[in-house]
């Protein structure tokens, strides 16, 4: 038996977009144990929500995650509506579903790109992120933002989708189909992807149930759960779609579930666009009485859970949030050990831990004056690429 050594990954590591600490305990090339340490990104949003007005909370919880940003305010609004016992207008339901499914598309494409990057297959990374860009452009068109759409509101949605924007959505979805088919074919045909992901990082159904994993992780292990169908919210029970389930539980199954789910999302968006009626987009809510409510939403990573309690004042006295990654990440404890170090990167990434990436930034002076605009930053970045290229050419 070879000697045990420790390989620390994180808290800050080039492979990770967010700080988290993994301690791989290895014997030679084989990982025998894993320790996970989190908390580097804790911002105390549950405590913060207790100090915010009911209508301010959606903005706070939207900032929990930069990828599944609409799932949190969605679940929160459903929780408050559950407390109130109200329903929202039909049009608002459909708008919520369209935003939710568009978000799933961009989140799964982002993950697919990262997965390609982690196995050293950067072509997939470039392709997937190129396909993701039109989805983000669409968000900008509909909501004004590429991330943090601020669409959800207690009682409905904050903004309508304009009639003139329908063709753009339809066009995007239509153009995405061939790209998705290409991904599905690539995953099925490519021998390198199969070698790297089949029979790696297996999570059995029993383990999945014990760890209580959610979303695509559970469905890739043969556990058929999806809140959209099981505890149907909005109008998911009126559109035709199916829950994608694979039995194997390995990384390959997790890729396949996500790729196939994107087809379902496209189909849901198309059906919503055909069915969406004209009318109001919100039910007016004045006071929140004392009581409690629970909202559940199927985020791209699994069930997102919000519990709220009111004492009749203008703030929640308790707001419990459980994001899906809290249940998914511990499953690494059984999926990483037993495989090699080189498999650890993709296995750790396969649960799609919530990486936050905002693509636009601006630097501010303390006085609040902007010193660099987005265009200037892009220009700087392009100049650096040019400079590196020249250095490379000289060699």
């Amino acid at each position, binding site marked *: 038996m070879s000697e045990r050594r420790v390989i620390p990954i994180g808290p800050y590591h080039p492979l990770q977009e967010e700080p988290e600490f993994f301690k791989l305990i290895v014997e030679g090339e084989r990982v025998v144990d894993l320790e996970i340490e*989190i*908390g580097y990104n*804790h911002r*105390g949003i*549950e*405590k913060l929500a207790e100090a915010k007005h009911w209508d301010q909370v959606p903005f706070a919880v939207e900032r929990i995650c930069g990828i599944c940003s609409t799932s949190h305010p969605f679940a929160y609004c459903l929780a408050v509506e*559950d407390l109130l*016992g109200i329903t929202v207008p039909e049009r608002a339901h459909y708008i919520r579903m369209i935003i939710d499914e568009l978000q799933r598309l961009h989140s799964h494409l982002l993950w697919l790109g990262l997965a390609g990057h982690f196995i050293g297959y950067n072509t997939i990374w470039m392709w997937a992120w190129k396909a993701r860009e039109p989805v983000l452009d669409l968000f900008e068109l509909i909501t004004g933002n590429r991330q943090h759409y601020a669409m959800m509101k207690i009682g409905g949605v904050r903004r309508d989708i304009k009639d003139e924007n329908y063709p753009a959505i339809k066009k995007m979805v239509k153009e995405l189909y061939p790209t998705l088919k290409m991904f599905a074919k690539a995953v099925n045909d490519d021998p390198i992807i199969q070698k790297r992901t089949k029979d790696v990082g297996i999570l059995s159904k029993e383990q999945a*149930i*014990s*760890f*209580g994993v959610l979303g695509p992780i559970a469905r890739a292990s043969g556990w058929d*759960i999806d809140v959209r169908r*099981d*505890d*149907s919210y909005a109008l998911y029970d009126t559109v035709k779609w199916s829950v994608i389930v694979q039995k194997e539980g390995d990384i390959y199954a997790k890729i396949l579930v996500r790729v196939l789910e994107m087809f379902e999302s496209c189909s849901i968006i198309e059906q919503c666009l055909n069915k969406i009626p004209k009318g109001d987009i919100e039910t007016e809510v004045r006071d929140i009485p004392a009581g*409690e*409510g*629970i909202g*559940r939403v199927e985020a791209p990573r699994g*069930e997102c*859970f919000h*519990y709220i*309690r009111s004492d009749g004042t203008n703030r929640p006295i*308790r707001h*419990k949030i*459980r994001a899906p990654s*809290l*249940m998914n990440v*511990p499953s690494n404890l059984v999926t990483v050990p037993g495989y090699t170090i080189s498999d650890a990167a993709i296995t750790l990434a396969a649960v799609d831990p919530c990486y936050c990436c905002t693509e636009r930034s601006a630097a501010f002076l303390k006085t609040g004056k902007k010193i660099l605009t987005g265009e200037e930053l892009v220009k700087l970045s392009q100049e650096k690429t040019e400079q590196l290229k020249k250095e490379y050419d000289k060699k």
Partner: protein
Amino acid sequence: MIKEEIKRRLEKNIKDWVVKNPKRIYFTIESKDLKETVKLFYQKMKLRLSTVTGIDNLTNFELIYHFSCDKTGELFNLRVFLSDRDKPEIDSLCDIFESSNWVEREIHEMLGIKFKGHPNLTHLLLDDTWPKNKYPLRKDYSNE
């Protein structure tokens, strides 16, 4: 139906059975009955632990175990009150399933509730240098 089955099997232990709407059912049990109830839910009835909410009510602590029935979409919310505010304790569920491990660690550091039998009741989100006996989600917490 699963609602009736729970009501029938736990008839003696259940207090305050409230069906808020067909998908959201709330009820209270004694903390000593928790483990038996959870075993019944998880092993016999195949319910899934969604999460646990801990609440400081100033006079006591309240834990709500949210169990999801994924076949019917019902959510069974099992309430437990811990009246001893100075030394709140309850049985850990870690020997039944893994999913309660991190959830219990989070409640422990945020509200100071001890989970008896937990294998690793250390800080999950807060830093190790966080002062002892200071629990941020308690209502009497102050920043000083």
